[in-house]
Each structure stands twice: as structure tokens, then as C-alpha cells.
């Protein structure tokens, strides 16, 4: 956590990640997604993680994560993370 460091909005990058996820997961109008970037300076944690929660209509919520800040994520990173969670076929 850095309360007073230079805070950069990452909403554009998170919106991009969500739009790729929407395509890759073929989401319908009743499905929802959240995307959030978490930072942690503990030695055992990745410094930045982008976490996606997928809340499909009628299904339990699932989480997928990419151990990178949203700005560094490309479509293939996200695809791999969703494949690893079995959310899309490999």
C-alpha cells in the first residue's frame, strides 16, 4: 500500500482487461465481471496482481488472476489465466 505515492488511475487498463474477458468468456447480458488491481509489498506476494471475478447468471462466482499490473497484461496473459481456471477451453 502506498497512500501518498503517485496514484495513477488504471481504469482504462482494467476496462480493457474486462472487455477482453467479455469476449473470451462470451459473456451474456446477465453475466457480470469485476476487475481490480491489488498491490502488496510482502516478500511472498507478487507486487501486483490483477484479479477478475466472474459472476455468471445462475452460477457460482469464480476468480481468475494474472500476477501483473493491468497495464502490463496482454490478451494472451488473460487467455492463459482463464484457461488455467478451466473457464475457457485450452
Amino acid at each position: 500500500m502506498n497512500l501518498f505515492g503517485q496514484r495513477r488511475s488504471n481504469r482504462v487498463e482494467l476496462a480493457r482487461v474486462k472487455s477482453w474477458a467479455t469476449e473470451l468468456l462470451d459473456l451474456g447480458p446477465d453475466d457480470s465481471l469485476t476487475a481490480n488491481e491489488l498491490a502488496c509489498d510482502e516478500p511472498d506476494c507478487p507486487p501486483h496482481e490483477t484479479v477478475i471475478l466472474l459472476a455468471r447468471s445462475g452460477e457460482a462466482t469464480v476468480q481468475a488472476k494474472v500476477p501483473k499490473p493491468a497495464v502490463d497484461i496482454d490478451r494472451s496473459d488473460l487467455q492463459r489465466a482463464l484457461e488455467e481456471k478451466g473457464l475457457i477451453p485450452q
Partner: protein
Amino acid sequence: MNLIKTPKIPVTVLTGFLGSGKTTLLNRILTEQHGQKIAVIENEFGEVGIDNDLVIDAEEEIFEMNNGCICCTVRGDLIRILGQLMRRKDRFDHILIETTGLADPGPVIQTFFVDEEMQDHLDLDGVVTMVDAGHILLHLDESSEAQEQIAFADVIVLNKIDLVESDQLDELEKRIRRLNAAARIHRVENASVPVREVVGVGGFDMTRGLEIDPDLLVPGYPFEWLGVYELEPGRHSLVFDQDPDPSVNVLVLPVDSATDEAVDRRLREATIAFSDRTEPLGADDSIRPDGGLAGVALATGGTSVAIDIKQAGSYAVFTEHGAEELGLQLLSADGQLVKPAVDRQIAPDHEHDDTVSSVGIEADGELDPERLNEWLGTLLREKGQDIFRSKGVLAIAGMEERYVFQGVHMLMDGQSDRPWGSDERTNRLIFIGRNLDRIELEGGFNSCLT
């Protein structure tokens, strides 16, 4: 580029035990003419009797996000429902989420912190907790959920006050205040709180002032009693008639005079001395002024220990427990009872052992940003599970504006606010949570002051 900013939809979270009057309030909100279209997300056991297409049933789905050391529990069903509501947000002005009676409000609130897009469209307005004045004491004694629902609240509606005597109500309100020193409390019958007092409360609006019950800003001390005595040179005795614990910590400090002001000047020193290691007092040992913290073993049937005074003067005796609880008396060298000139109970006797409490801190001065960052970061990482809510208005060294922050468990957000201008640069913050250690929090905060 879209230059017209869409107004955000405020969201109110309504909590309260079964029977507290949530449904009565919801039914009123849905039927009263208040000029607002309010969408209600009702819990699966809800009993709202209104046929209204803006009432949505939610099946509570708790989802635990575990990412490294940040642990955050959210409501999966709300992500779905709010996502759907955002697509038809032109149809209502406000969203009200009712939780189940036994729910911890934490996951509902944290759901709003996990997505920036959601924050762009929705504005978490506040947590309203309905309390049944007739039954809440029982619930507080038996359930941690009741304590947590009060702890999370921005507004507490003390309902069914007609079932309770007014002195009991005062006592109840006092206990609620100890759990949550920052919430507004409304006393009502039949859930008849005005709608404007429960929607649009701005509880999560960081730019609003921070209202803390002044009683909760009193610093915490590790001793429960102090007495100031005028003593002549000689060997006096401290007599303990009671033994509430096997031993009790005692400190004696000289003070300039037998007055409140003089002893106030030594409170900080006494607090620090109480955090030192206790020296157990041997059978032939005596307590000496400025001799450090003495651990007195209390025997059944009474204990007497000597205080050696070399110079006539005023001396403050600080004890870990109250003088009454210890049956404490001071006898002079010739066996006469000496009455204290200052006799002060520091911590009121707590009738209830609530694990949830509020710690409010108010201090002038400026904070070192690096130290503050380190302290708050570590505090929330290590104790965030137990800190339900935190809020603060801070004066940061080198920053002209007020810095405002708020957090829910481990998630925290802060921003600079308006300039201090001619206002005194006073830091005000509050932590509401479980097993909070006031001394530790104050110590951590003080270490950040420049």
C-alpha cells in the same frame, strides 16, 4: 469523449437482526411519497409485501478473494445483480440492499471496492443498522454479528423504543456508542425514521467531516485508578483488602502538588512506565517513588506493602485496577489512614465485555507521510480482519490540503481534500473493530507525528 458526467446512483445497505423492523422500514420506503424511485435488493428470506418490479430477491453468495496477503470477502450475487441494475439505471434513483438478519455487512461493502467501473456508476452511501431496543442487549451478549452490524453502521435506528424505559434507553445508547462512536443514532417507534435520515447519509463520503463521540477521544491508560497523597518522610503502607487478580501492578511517582493539573503532567510518563517490564516485589521489598513498575502479589485475606518516602511531598499512586476493586488504603508510618487529595477512576468499570469497540484519536501536529504509510499499511495488513471500518482526516507534513482516508477491513482509499486554510491542523481518526488495543493504536499513531 463524453463530457457529460452521469450522476452516480447512491446505494444504502440496510442491516439488522430479524425482528428489528427492517421489513417495516422497507415497506414504508417503498410506499411513502418521498419523490425517489428506490430499487430494493431484498435478502432471500425477505418479507417485503409490495409487488414492485424494483424489488429484487438476492440469494446471498459469499465469495472469498485471496490474493497474497490481502483477503477480502465479497458478495458474488451482488456483483451479478448490480451489474444488471447498472444496465437499466435510468429507472431508479437509489438502491437499497437489505442483508439477512445474521449477516456480517463486510462482504456487501467490500463488493463496492473491487471494481472501479462499479464505483464510477454507484456511490456507496451508507450502512443503516436497525436495532430492536427491546432485544438488542440479549443479541449483543450472545452474538458477534449484532456487534458487527452496529460497528459497521453510519446510521443506527434504535427502533421500538416504546418497549423500553428511558433510563434503559440511555444505557443502551451508551453501550452502542462504545461499539461505534461515529454513527448517528435515531430513536424511533415502529421504524418511523424519516426516509431522508436513512438514504443520502454520505457515510462513505470522505470529504464529509468526521463526527466522533468526544468521550471516545479520551486517551486510554493502562491503569484504572490514581490517587495523589501528601506524604511525610517515613515507611508508609499500601494495604490491599481484596485480591481480584493474583497480582497487581503499582507505580508511584512524585508530583509537584496534590492537584489534578500536576498529576496530568505525569500521565504520559506513567503510561510509558506501565508498558515496561514489571519488577515483582519481594516479601521484604518496598515501593519507591520513581522506582519503576512494581508487581504486588495479592494474598487472600489482604496484603500490605511498604512505600518508602525520603522527602515530604505529593506522590501519585497508579494502580492497574480500581482502588475500590482492590480495597486499597494508604496508612501513614504511624498507622493513620491517609486520604488521597486527588482520587481518580481512570477507566469506568465495564459492565459488558464487548469485543467490538471504537478507538478515536485526536491530535494536533503533522504526520510524517512515510511513517504513516508504513504504520497504516502494516496495521491493516496484520489487523485488517479485525478492523471493520476506519476513517480519518489527517494533517500531513508538507501538504496544504487535508488528507482524508477511509477503509473497510484491509481495503483502504485516501485522497487530498480541501486546504486547511485557517483551520487548526488537527488529526482526527477512528478505528472500529474487534479486539482493538487503544494503547497500541495511539502509540503507533504518535510515532508518525513529526
